[in-house]
């Protein structure tokens, strides 16, 4: 265990070379079966093809890359050490620094979020991608309550997402409910599913809980696939109505006796109106969610979630009913996931079970953990990253998902606590601003 980082001596060039050679050798061993050899279809049978040139290039790249990486890590470490030695910052200073950073990020994010559709008012792709980011932010915030705050590992979060999406889709296509009528009902349904799932498995700890939630997610998906009469089965549900602007539809040619959004405001019809409206709609609801969750965190129930994550037994000894606390976390998390599902259905206009697979749960969980457990801003940061990496990668075709996986590993290794690991206390005895001058006086 190399915990004693500061005692590491500087590596000599020979050591560096030996280290890189060893890594290159490992690369060679790993590369032989995957890069060096491959099987190709040779007229109905497989034949082996060798690509030793490519393998050599890969090994050389690994060698060079390792030298560079090692050097870069050492540099970064030294700089960090020096900075730590030089600075006299106290924990309180660092905390207020982190707080300032988070606040700054938050304002920047809010600013860009609001101005984005104005800047890109005729760019579908940007607005739509931003909408996707917002949906994932919502999902991240929902799961953050369950995993980040209450510490209950949920690998089947996609189930609630699916419940929300299907509730909206069914209520609107079968019963003609509007978006605004269906939204709260879908959220409530998702929340009840959260309680339904939560109740029988409260006794389970940690990873047992994880596998059962994973199973629950799969069960919901399998039922959606097979119960054709109810959910449309694998065909899914199409032609889901889009939210209207206080009763005004976003159509080019409104139905008899009705007015469209563009007609009412005397604008020329543009499909962007609907997109931008949906974006702002989700943004407003996301901000409400943010306010809601941030406030909850500062309430007894929020602190109870965090206490539960920290030590369940101590919670019981404090007279807290852990059953209720867990269920409330599950319910609130599920409800937010359900809202996310509604937005997803409204964005797509079409849903099918394919969109609610385990990978989706894994990505939402990754958003929470990469962001820094329990950190609302972290979720925003991580959701943006995880949605944008594959989008950026569209130019890279096959390398896209490979880089996505690699990025997840690297971010985790680089910052095991998540991107924004700082935890801001829910209340302070002395506000931060007051402690600074007091320290000045003490010097």
């Amino acid at each position, binding site marked *: 265990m190399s915990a004693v980082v500061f005692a590491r001596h500087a590596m000599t060039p020979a050591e560096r070379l030996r280290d890189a050679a060893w890594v290159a050798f490992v690369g060679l061993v790993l590369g032989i*079966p995957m890069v060096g050899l491959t099987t190709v279809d040779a007229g109905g049978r497989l034949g082996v093809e060798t690509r030793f040139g490519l393998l050599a290039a890969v090994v050389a790249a690994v060698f060079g890359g390792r030298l560079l990486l090692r050097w870069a890590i050492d540099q970064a470490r030294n700089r960090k050490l020096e900075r730590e030695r030089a600075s006299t910052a106290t924990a309180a200073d660092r905390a207020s620094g982190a707080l300032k950073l988070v606040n700054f990020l938050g304002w920047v994010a809010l600013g860009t979020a609001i101005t984005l559709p104005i800047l890109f008012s005729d760019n579908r792709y940007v607005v739509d991608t931003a909408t996707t980011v917002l949906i994932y932010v919502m999902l991240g915030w929902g799961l953050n309550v369950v995993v980040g705050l209450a510490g209950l590992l949920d690998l089947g979060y996609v189930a609630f997402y699916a419940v929300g999406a299907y509730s909206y889709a069914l209520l609107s296509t079968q019963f003609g409910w509007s978006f605004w009528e269906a939204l709260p009902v879908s959220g409530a349904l998702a929340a009840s599913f959260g309680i339904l799932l939560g109740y029988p498995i409260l006794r389970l700890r940690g990873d*047992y809980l994880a596998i059962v939630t994973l199973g629950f997610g*799969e069960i919901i998906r399998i039922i959606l696939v097979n119960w054709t009469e109810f959910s449309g089965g694998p065909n899914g549900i199409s032609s889901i109505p889009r939210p209207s602007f206080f009763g005004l539809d976003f159509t080019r040619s409104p139905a008899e006796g009705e007015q469209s959004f563009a007609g009412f405001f005397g604008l020329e019809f543009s499909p962007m109106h609907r997109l931008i409206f949906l974006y702002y709609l989700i943004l407003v609801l996301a901000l409400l969610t943010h306010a809601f969750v941030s406030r909850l965190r500062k309430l007894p129930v929020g602190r109870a979630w965090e206490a539960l994550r920290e030590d369940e037994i101590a919670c019981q000894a404090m007279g807290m009913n852990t059953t209720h606390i867990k269920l409330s976390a599950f319910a609130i998390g599920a409800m937010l996931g359900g809202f996310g599902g509604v937005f997803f259905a409204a964005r797509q206009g079409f849903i099918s079970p394919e969109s609610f697979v385990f990978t989706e749960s894994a990505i939402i969980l990754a958003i929470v953990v*990469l962001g820094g457990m329990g950190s609302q801003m972290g979720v925003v940061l991580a959701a943006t990253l995880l949605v944008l990496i594959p989008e950026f990668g569209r130019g890279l075709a096959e*390398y896209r998902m*490979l880089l996505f996986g690699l990025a997840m590993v690297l971010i985790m*290794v680089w910052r095991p606590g998540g991107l924004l690991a700082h935890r801001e206390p829910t209340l302070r005895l002395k506000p931060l601003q007051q402690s600074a001058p007091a320290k000045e006086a003490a010097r």
Partner: protein
Amino acid sequence: MAYALQQLINGLTLGSMYGLIAIGYTMVYGIIGMINFAHGDIFMVSAFIAVTAFTILAAADVTSIPLALTFVLIVSIFFTSAYGWAVERTAYRPLRGSSRLAPLISAIGMSIFLQNTVQLTQGARVKPIPPVLEGGVVLWDAPGFAVQIGWSQILIIVTTVILMSAFTWMITQTPFGRQQRACEQDRKMAALLGVNVDRTISYTFMLGAALAAVAGVMVTVYYGVVDFFIGFLAGIKAFTAAVLGGIGSLPGAMLGGLLIGLIESFWSAYLWAEYKDVATFGILCLVLILRPSGLLGRPEVEKV
């Protein structure tokens, strides 16, 4: 009756394979308490290595089946262990001591990475090999239905039994097994007592990968077709098996694997095949509600 017997054989074969992969999960969980989500993909890598090895042998006109199998097993175990080692070294070791979710996410990332690497380097198309072990024995020629067991099925079940015994012996009797168990119980204490914890963990990953490699070769022999996506479902099922049996327990993993194989087999034989995964997960939930630590898991009473 004959039908049930045939389904039993099918279930046992499938279960053996789940069991072999599940052991990898359970060992890693036992020693560092993390769900190694990339384990299913390690299994997938091993199946690709096996396909390549078989193809090389076919090109070299090797016709002796035992010789071919031995060669493929050795090659596959060697390279797959290297993958197991490398994955642990790069994606998990740096995260030791951080929250238990960090390695989980790293593992999910690793799983995506491995899948896409293989897709990129080996292609997205399915990789078939010609049947290696054809034929089998008719166990019971019941009227209207002949119960058959294929040579490859026999191979899988026998290999699994041998490996299980060897493993149990190794964990209970050898110095490595003792070190492994020591690390499981208390890593810090084991380190203080002179156990090289890092190395023991590395070996555990390599062993888990080696078992996955055996499973990979068996899958290649039995089904004859692999693709870069096989690791995902097999991984989920095997993980379920490990939990069902009680994660951390080797016989538990095997038992869990067999049970899941049998449940799937019999459920789809007599009930609705499309709900077979619902049955698997339903039974898992039920077992966990009644026995929160799985079938053979040590009951985990947290000391107050």
